[in-house]
């Protein structure tokens, strides 16, 4: 795992106050854990991720749609060989739009929040809005409404963005340089907001 990028359970702990759901994760810490871990997987398909990579998808460290136990075992073995451990396994969530929520320290030392269309091509799509923290809820909702017309979804995204901002602003030692929640999605019913991936980039990872 890169010392400058935090992911997995450590990130969930840091972001515990953010009103967002996390898919149940099975963490596999070594090859020896595979058997027990796979028994803990309740349903398929699943998503397999190599932890500790800054941009997993671009590095090939995310496999979605893994459909059964045999495929899962093979995925975990391959990831363990190429990327090392730990590896997380989460249920695949059916969803529509992928969003991104993020916070970062700007060159002036001030903190910014960002919301937009996320996923793997977030930078290529370049559909994001930046707001200066702290941000009022109305302002956050107004920004989010660029990307969804569903008011209850806008409210959830806005609340998550505000809470994410509070994590950043409360970081008095400036340990965190940037936090990405990408993608965040609503489940098939559209009611619950999930973070499918999250990373905390430590301040010393800033070039």
């Amino acid at each position, binding site marked *: 795992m890169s010392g400058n990028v935090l992911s997995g359970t450590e990130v969930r702990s840091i972001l515990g106050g953010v009103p967002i759901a996390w898919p149940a994760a099975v963490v596999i810490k070594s090859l020896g854990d595979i058997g027990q871990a796979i028994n803990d997987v309740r349903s398929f398909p699943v998503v397999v991720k190599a932890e500790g990579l800054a941009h997993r998808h671009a590095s090939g460290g995310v496999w979605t749609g893994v459909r059964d136990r045999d495929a899962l075992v093979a995925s975990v073995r391959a990831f363990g060989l190429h990327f090392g451990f730990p590896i997380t396994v989460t249920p695949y969530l059916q969803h529509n739009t992928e969003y991104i929520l993020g916070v*970062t320290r700007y060159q*002036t030392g001030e903190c910014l929040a960002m919301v937009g269309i996320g996923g793997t091509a977030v930078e290529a799509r370049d559909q994001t809005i930046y707001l200066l923290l702290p941000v009022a809820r109305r302002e956050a909702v107004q920004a989010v409404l660029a990307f969804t017309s569903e008011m209850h979804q806008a409210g959830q995204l806005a609340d998550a963005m505000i809470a994410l901002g509070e994590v950043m602003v409360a970081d008095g030692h400036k340990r965190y*340089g940037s936090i990405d929640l990408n993608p965040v999605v609503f489940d098939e019913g559209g009611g619950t907001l999930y973070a499918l991936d999250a990373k905390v980039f430590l301040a010393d990872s800033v070039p």
Partner: protein
Amino acid sequence: MAEMTGKDLDYIRATLRPSAVTIVGYSPDSAGSTNLLQRLRRNGFTGPVHLINRRRAERGESGFLPSARAVRGDLGMVYVLLEGPAAVQVVQDLPRRPAGVVIFGAGFTESGRPDLEAELVTWANGAFDGSPVPVYGPQSMGIFSTANGFFGTNAILPERIEQGEVAIVTQSGSLLCTISRTASARNLGLSRAIAVGNGRVTSAFDAAAALLGEADVSVVVVYAEAVPELALLRNLGQVARVEQKPVLLCLGGVSLAGRAAAYSHTGAMATEERVVGAVARHSGLITVRSPEELIWGAEALIDNALRTPEGTGVALIGFTGGGVIVVADELARHGIDLTVPSTDTVDRIRLAVDGHNTTWNPVDGGPALGRPGGVSEITRAYVADPGFGVYLGLAGGGLPPPTRVHELQVEAFAQAVLDGGALGVVGSYVPDESTGAWKIAGLTTARGGNELAAKARILRDWSRLNSPLRSVQDLQDQASEESCQVTF
């Protein structure tokens, strides 16, 4: 905590109405010195002017003092005609609080001495009790006010500046000259101007916020080249909201460079251009793309009397066929979507043009031109649509209207827009330098597609700031354009 208003920054506004002036480093052999003094007197400043020149005073030359310590009474505005460390020393030696300080010279950060600017900041904030001392510079060209005739500036200005409602704040001294001259050429009156120079002590944003508090200032235009803190934009926007006055902001020299790819997505995409533009707009500032647009925008807002229509959509009505297509393309380049009007509006327009049109925004008013009242009918059909607030009339034959018939068309358009309480621009799509100072009461005019589109964009942004957001669609439309907007 109460919201800050422009009136909270009276210590900055006070620099434009000093009771005295002290010029340190004055020399009758220096054009900079003599220009400053002559301009002060020529424009009616009657307070004492203290001339500081140690060598001349020691030689016994009349009219000179050896230092500011020898000044009896109020120092007023202190102008420092020295550079670098010498300038800082003079400021630090001031015996009493001045109204403010202007440092014309260089020799600071650009000469590798950022520590000198830091010393000025420390002095301004701590030398005297109470509010900070305003310091314009280094590399300031000074300040002026037409309200009271105080012209403490070395800038090359027009012979006469008409008194008006526009205030200028600029980090660039040469742009103070350019903007003032352009405004004068267009008969756009100016109220006050502050050239903040490097803006490290008193920022352009604080100066702008202060000028918003002046009763005779309706619009503030700002040119800046650095944003030391994003919060300054937010503060300025807050004051603009409280004062209910527009601030037009042009930022020069912002970086397009992205961050390293190994960084987070949020960090990598936080380019200076994207971030500063977004924060400025979300703070309620109207961003423009060039210093020229500062003048166009101020003119458009003043000409339209800062009306605040409920609708925010932009409608283009042409009194000439091909021209609307050209202008529509120009509007698209300025990020303006010509939204399709409601079905009811389309039905009304169809009646007005006898059903010959195939597009409804822009609309070619040509088929209706031959009928008395045709232009008025088309325009009023649109004005009745609550979704629209900015109307662009593309004049057939150019401007000024070449015939009485063309003039009647423009007047009919203008009256319909005014009756609807909306914002309007009458333009020609080819720049015509013979347009001169032709005006139409209550609306603004534009020469050429670029000016027309820029004014449309600025008026639209003004209407968005003031329109109650009535629907999710309004919010979406506004924010969608925001999210795709890279340049400002």
